[in-house]
């Protein structure tokens, strides 16, 4: 069995309440949404993009002990049936494929649900589904889910951001603007070393977070650079920096010093007959990465 490198991308998905943006949302509702979608038959589950002659649909959804979730999206391009070329002797023959048929391309995704966001790993596949289209797909069913269940999820918007894989500083410099910065201080900075020693602050569950927002049309890039200098020293009281900004393509980007990973590829087994990747092997590697994060 041969192997192949597959490029992967990291994203943060978050359900946010449209009416009350500051109110925390139950991120695990996304699992209910997938369970809702998978119940449909193919005809209802598919999303047809006519102008591109492409169909996307959720092919499978499963849970790995409720720690991580696995998704396979299937994509097919139709109205494309050129004759088949024999690469040995150069002869062509008519393509037996019907006009509404297409080769299925699987895109593998895995995610884990955190308290206030969802970390998603997605296979980067040219002929598969891209993140924007995937979110469109979820949003399409989110509305239906509400209509049928009168569930609060309708009030939720599904936002996504890129989670870059490179060095934090490199990624920070590549942003066109930085809108929000959150600096997480160690809760131990509240007291003296003796107070910390006594473990009296152990019941303070979370770290101290200082939030900074840029005024409209401005960027807080320089401020974040100053904070990063303080973060990047030994025994810094700053535990984590997380920023939201836009890249040059105007996509939302989240930079998180905890979530910066160097992993860009996974090496997976390929089925000799079909050239398709081994799904189980792909998800095993996704799990390892997700559980580390």
């Amino acid at each position, binding site marked *: 069995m041969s192997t192949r490198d597959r490029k992967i991308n990291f994203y943060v998905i978050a359900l946010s309440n449209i009416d009350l943006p500051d109110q925390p949302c139950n991120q695990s509702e996304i699992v209910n949404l997938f369970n809702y979608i998978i119940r449909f038959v193919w005809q209802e589950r598919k999303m047809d993009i006519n102008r591109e002659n492409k169909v996307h649909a959720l092919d499978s959804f499963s849970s790995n002990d409720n720690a991580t979730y696995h998704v396979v999206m299937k994509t097919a391009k139709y109205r494309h049936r050129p004759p088949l070329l024999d690469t040995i002797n150069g002869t062509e023959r008519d393509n037996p494929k019907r006009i509404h048929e297409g080769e299925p391309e699987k895109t593998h995704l895995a995610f884990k649900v955190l308290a206030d966001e969802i970390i998603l790993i997605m296979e980067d596949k040219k002929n598969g589904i891209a993140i924007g289209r995937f979110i469109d797909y979820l949003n399409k069913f989110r509305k239906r889910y509400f209509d049928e269940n009168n569930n609060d999820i309708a009030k939720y918007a599904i936002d996504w951001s890129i989670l870059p894989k490179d060095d934090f500083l490199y990624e920070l410099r590549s942003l066109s603007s930085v809108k929000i910065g959150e600096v997480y201080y160690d809760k131990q900075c509240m007291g003296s*070393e*003796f107070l910390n*020693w*006594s*473990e*009296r602050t152990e019941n303070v569950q979370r770290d101290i977070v200082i939030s900074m927002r840029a005024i409209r049309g401005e960027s807080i890039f320089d401020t974040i650079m100053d904070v990063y200098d303080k973060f990047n020293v030994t*025994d810094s009281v700053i535990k984590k920096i997380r920023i939201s900004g836009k890249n040059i393509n105007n996509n939302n980007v989240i930079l998180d010093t905890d979530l910066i990973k160097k992993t860009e590829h996974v090496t997976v087994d390929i089925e000799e007959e079909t050239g398709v990747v081994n799904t189980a092997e792909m998800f095993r590697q996704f799990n390892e990465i997700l559980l580390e994060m």
Partner: protein
Amino acid sequence: MLGRFLYLEFLFPILDYLKTLELREGTYDLGIPVYVTLILYFNLAPITADQKSIIGSAIALLAILIGFSITSITVLSTSSGEAIKLLKEKKSKRMISKKPISLFQLLHIGFTYALIIEILTLASILTFSVLLRCNVSSPLCSGLYFFNIFLLIHIILINLRNTTNFYFVLFKSE
């Protein structure tokens, strides 16, 4: 050089205390006493006969505090409890001679500094008392009077901080 002819090693705990002082601790230990002393100076100077009566009370207070500090150092140095053992192993962020000190050393510096400064304050108050009896010029007496007030407030706050630190040390072991 001076150290060859005069014993000055009692300055080591004072220097160690100053080296290991953090900003907010400095504000508490030194800033508040300076601030209160300045307020008193501008409202009470020149000193009157009534204010001179503080000498007796201050000597009594210092005698008690010196006893308290000696007891604290004794308890700290003779204790072999689990908390104290761990305290000796736990490194602090503070450094002396570029080496991190343990929390135990930090606590020890606090109590020893308090004891030394209490003894020096006692000496200063006794000096002030002698100067008064000898009718030495008023500005010198006045300066020493308010310096003693500063030292007394400083000592009270240091003892408060040391006691709180000791409380946290023992609290963990429970």
